[in-house]
C-alpha cells in the first residue's frame, strides 16, 4: 500500500459538519415509541405531539423532493392522515420516524410521477413565492449590507435549484442523508433500496450537487 502523509490542516478542513440527527437518536426514538403507545392507549394529545415533532422535518423533505412548498404541505397533511389511520397496525419494532419518512416520501414520489404524466400542470417552485418572513434571521446586519444580503439570498435560491436538478431517486437519498442525518440503514428502509444502492446514489448525488453549484460559489 502506498504510504501517505496527510496534511493536518487539510484533515481539519475536511471534517464534515454533519447534518442534524434530531429524531434519529435513541432518546428521540424512545419518545416516539412512548407517544405512539400513548396515542393507541387513548391519549388525545399524543398524536398532536408526534405531529409537532415531525411536521417541520417531513415538510422540508417533501417540499425539497417535489420543489413546491405549498403542495408539500398538502402531501404532509395527507401523510399524517395515513399515519393516523394506520398507526394501530404500526409494527413497534420499527422506528416511527423511518415509517413516517417512508409514507411521506412515497407520496412525494407519486406526485412526481403524476407530474410526468401531466406535464402541463403548473407548479410553484420552492424559490417562487417565498416570503421574506420565511427566512431565518441569521443576518442581523443585512439592512446595512444590501449587497451581501442579495448575494446570500441568491446563493440560497441557487442551492435550492441545484437540489431540484438532481434526479428524484438521488435527491431523496441526498436529502435524507445530508439534511436529515439519517443512517444508511434507515435510508435503505425508507426508500426500499439496498445499502449498496443507497451508497452509490449518495455518492453520485454529492458529486453532481457539487459540480452544479461549484461555478456559482467561485
Amino acid at each position, binding site marked *: 500500500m502506498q504510504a501517505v502523509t496527510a496534511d493536518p490542516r487539510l484533515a481539519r478542513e475536511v471534517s464534515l459538519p454533519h447534518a442534524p440527527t434530531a429524531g434519529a437518536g435513541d432518546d428521540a426514538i424512545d419518545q416516539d415509541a412512548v407517544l405512539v403507545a400513548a396515542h393507541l392507549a387513548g391519549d388525545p394529545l399524543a398524536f398532536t405531539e408526534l405531529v409537532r415533532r415531525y411536521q417541520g422535518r417531513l*415538510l422540508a423533505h417533501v417540499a425539497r423532493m417535489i420543489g413546491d412548498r405549498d403542495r408539500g404541505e398538502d402531501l*404532509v397533511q395527507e401523510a399524517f*392522515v395515513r399515519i393516523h389511520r394506520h398507526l394501530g397496525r404500526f409494527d413497534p419494532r420499527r422506528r416511527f420516524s423511518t415509517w413516517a419518512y417512508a409514507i411521506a416520501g412515497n407520496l412525494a414520489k407519486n406526485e412526481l410521477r403524476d407530474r410526468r404524466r401531466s406535464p402541463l400542470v403548473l407548479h410553484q417552485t420552492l424559490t417562487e413565492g417565498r416570503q421574506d418572513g420565511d427566512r431565518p434571521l441569521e443576518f442581523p446586519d443585512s439592512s446595512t449590507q444590501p449587497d451581501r444580503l442579495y448575494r446570500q439570498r441568491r446563493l440560497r435560491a441557487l442551492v435550492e435549484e441545484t437540489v431540484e436538478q438532481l434526479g428524484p431517486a438521488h435527491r431523496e437519498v441526498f436529502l435524507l442523508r445530508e439534511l436529515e442525518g439519517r443512517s444508511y440503514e434507515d435510508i435503505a428502509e425508507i426508500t426500499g433500496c439496498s445499502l449498496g444502492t443507497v451508497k452509490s446514489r449518495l455518492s453520485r448525488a454529492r458529486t453532481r450537487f*457539487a459540480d452544479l453549484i461549484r461555478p456559482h*460559489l467561485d
Partner: protein
Amino acid sequence: MGGSRMQCDQFGRSFPDGLAGPGGNRLIAHLDACPTCRSRWRALRLGLRILREDSIRPSPGFEQALMARLAREARPPS
C-alpha cells in the same frame, strides 16, 4: 491533477464517510493532491451549509387544519 481518473472515482465513492476508516489518510492525501476533488468537496461543504441554514417551516395554520381533518375523519358518517 495528482490522481488518475480512477483514483478520483474511488475517492468519490469513499469520501467523506471513509475518513474515519483505515483508508482515511489516503483519502486526505488524494484531496491534498487533487485540485478537482478539493474544489468539488469545498463546493459540497459550502452548498450544504447554505442548504441547512434555509429552513422550511409549515405555515401557521398547518397543525390546526390537520387536526380538523383528523377530527372529521374520526367522526362517524351521518
